[in-house]
C-alpha cells in the first residue's frame, strides 16, 4: 500500500470540552460537574493541574485514572509546571478568558469499598472575570445561569497567601461572601449542589493567628450559606507548595474524593413518578416542572 492510499479520519481534538459538548460525557457513567470559582491567581487551574500530575504518578485517593477526553488540554496547562518548559520556577497558565465555560474531563474508577465504580468529572475553573461578574450582576453572562445551576459542586477558593496578610485577608473573606450571596439571590444554586470552601496555598499559612482566622472564615461562611446547598464542607490544600513542608498536591486527593461522593438525600420521601399510570395530565405537568427543585430532596420512584 502506498502513501496515496492512506486516507485519514479525524479524531476528537482532545482539547477542553465546551458546554455544548459535555452531554456526550454525561450520557455515559455518573458525572459530577465542578465549578472552581475564585479571584485571579487564587489557584484554580493549579488545583486541576496538580490532580492530573498526581494521576500521572499513580492512583489518587483510592481512585484509578480511567481515561480522559481532554488529554491534550491537560498537557497544555501542565506544561509550564514541568522541566520540559525550560523554566526553573513552575507557573500555571492563566485560564483562557475567550473560553470561560470549557471543561476538563477525567474518568475515575474506585478501587475499594465505598468508592464509586466509575464516575466522570467535568472540571471548570471559572475565570477571575466570571467570578467578578457573578458577584456584581444578577444575570451573569460569562458563565450563564444554566451552567451555574447544572453544577454538582461549587468550590469557592480562598487564597491562603492573601489570608495570611492583614491587608488582604478581608478582601478574600468579603469576596467569597459576596459571590455566595449573589449566587443565592440570583437563584444560581440548584438544590443538589454541594458547596466546598477551599483554602489554597496552605503551605503559606504559617502563623497560628492565620490558621485561626481561616477557621473563623470557614465557619462564618458555612453558617450563612450551608442551608442553600445540599451539603457544605471546607478543605485546605497546597496544590503546588512552595516549600517541602507539605507534599505536592497536599489535600487534593481528599478534595477529589469529596467531589465524586454521592450527596446524602435530605428527606427520603417516596413520591409518584411523573410517568405513573393513572396520573392526571395536570399532575404530570406539575411533576415535570417541579422535578429539578425536588429531585435532590425526594426519592422519586
Amino acid at each position, binding site marked *: 500500500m502506498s502513501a496515496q492510499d492512506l486516507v485519514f479520519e479525524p479524531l476528537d481534538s*482532545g482539547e477542553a470540552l465546551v458546554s455544548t459538548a459535555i452531554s456526550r460525557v454525561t450520557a455515559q457513567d455518573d458525572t459530577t460537574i465542578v465549578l472552581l470559582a475564585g479571584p485571579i491567581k487564587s489557584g484554580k487551574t493549579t488545583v486541576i493541574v496538580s490532580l492530573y500530575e498526581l494521576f500521572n504518578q499513580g492512583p489518587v485517593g483510592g481512585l484509578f485514572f480511567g481515561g480522559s477526553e481532554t*488529554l491534550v488540554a491537560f*498537557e497544555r496547562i501542565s506544561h509550564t509546571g514541568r*522541566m520540559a518548559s*525550560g523554566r*526553573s*520556577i513552575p507557573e500555571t497558565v492563566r485560564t483562557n478568558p475567550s473560553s470561560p465555560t470549557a471543561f476538563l474531563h477525567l474518568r*475515575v474508577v474506585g478501587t475499594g469499598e465505598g468508592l464509586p465504580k466509575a464516575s466522570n468529572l467535568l472540571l471548570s475553573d471559572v475565570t477571575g472575570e466570571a467570578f467578578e461578574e457573578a458577584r456584581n450582576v444578577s444575570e451573569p453572562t460569562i458563565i450563564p445561569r444554566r451552567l451555574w445551576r447544572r453544577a454538582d459542586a461549587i468550590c469557592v477558593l480562598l487564597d491562603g497567601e492573601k489570608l495570611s496578610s492583614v491587608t488582604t485577608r478581608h478582601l478574600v473573606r468579603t469576596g467569597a461572601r459576596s459571590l455566595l450571596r449573589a449566587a443565592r439571590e440570583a437563584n444560581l444554586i440548584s438544590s443538589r449542589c454541594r458547596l466546598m470552601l477551599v483554602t489554597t496555598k496552605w503551605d503559606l499559612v504559617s502563623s497560628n493567628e492565620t490558621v485561626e482566622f481561616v477557621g473563623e472564615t470557614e465557619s462564618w461562611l458555612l453558617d450563612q450559606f450551608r442551608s442553600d446547598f445540599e451539603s457544605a464542607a471546607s478543605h485546605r490544600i497546597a496544590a*503546588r507548595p512552595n516549600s517541602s513542608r507539605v507534599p505536592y498536591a497536599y489535600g487534593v486527593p481528599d478534595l477529589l474524593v469529596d467531589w465524586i461522593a454521592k450527596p446524602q438525600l435530605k428527606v427520603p420521601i417516596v413520591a409518584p413518578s411523573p410517568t405513573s399510570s393513572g396520573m392526571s395530565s395536570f399532575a404530570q405537568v406539575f411533576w415535570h416542572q417541579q422535578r429539578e427543585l425536588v429531585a435532590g430532596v425526594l426519592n422519586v420512584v
Partner: protein
Amino acid sequence: MSSEQTVVLVGLPGSGKTTFLAALWHQLESEEIQTAFTTDRLQPDREYLNGIRDAWLAFKEVPHTSAGIEQSALLRVRHVQTGKKFDLAIPDVAGETYKRQWLERQLPGTYIHQLHHSFGVILFVHPEQVLHPALLDGAVRDSTGSEALHEWEPALTPTQVRLVDLIQSALGVFDRSHVLRLALVVSAWDLVESPATPEVWVERHLPLLDQFLRANTGRVMSKIFGASAIGGSLTESEMLARTPTPSSRVRLHISSENLRDLSRTIEFLTLGES
C-alpha cells in the same frame, strides 16, 4: 475452516514492532522450538516476512516500515493445543502513523478498518524511549535568569499519555459489543535493569497507563509481556550467534515465567486468557 482476522501491531517509532514480527515469523516457520502455533501452510506471498526475517537472522537492524507505507503479513497458523486454525493478517504500520495520531489528531482509514476486523492489538513500548513528566520544584523561588522557554508542543507529551490516547482512540472505533484484547509488550526486555515482572515495570514506569488498564477491564482485556526479540544488543552478535538456534535467543516474559515462544502473545489475542 478459518476466516481471516487481524492482529494489529501498534506502537510509536522504534518501539520494536517489526523486529518482533521478524522473530515471530522465524519461530513459527522454522519449527526450531515448540510454539503455541504452527504454520499450517505457507501463505502465497512471503516476501516481506522473509525479508525482515533475513535481516533479523543476520543481526542487522530490521528495516523500519517507512512512513506512509504499510506492509501487511498474512500468517496461516494452527493452534497446537486446540487444533483451531486462523488466518492472521498482521499489518505492519509505520510508527510515524501512530505518532501522527497524537500530533495531528487523525487516524488512517485502513487502521480503523483493521480494528473493526481484529482479534485485538499488540501495543509495543520500548523501555529506553519512555518520556516521563518531570515536574519543576515548587520550592525554587529564584529564576536562574537564563531560561530558554519552550512553548508546549505535542512531542513533549509523556509516553504514557500518548499510549492511553492510542488505546482510547482504538476503543472509539472498536466494535463495542466485544472486549478489545490488548497484549502490551515491553520490547527490548533485556535492557530493563533489575527487572521484576513486566506488570511491575509498567506500574512503576507507566503508572497512568497501568491505572487505565485496571480501570477499564470491562472494555479492555489486557496482558503484559516483556519481550526480547533479539536476545540482546546487536553489538553482541557474536555471543548471540552461539545460541543453539536463532529461535532460542528470543525471550518472552509472562509474569515471572521466562519463555521463548513469541506466539504466546497471539494465543492471548485469539483465544483469551488460558
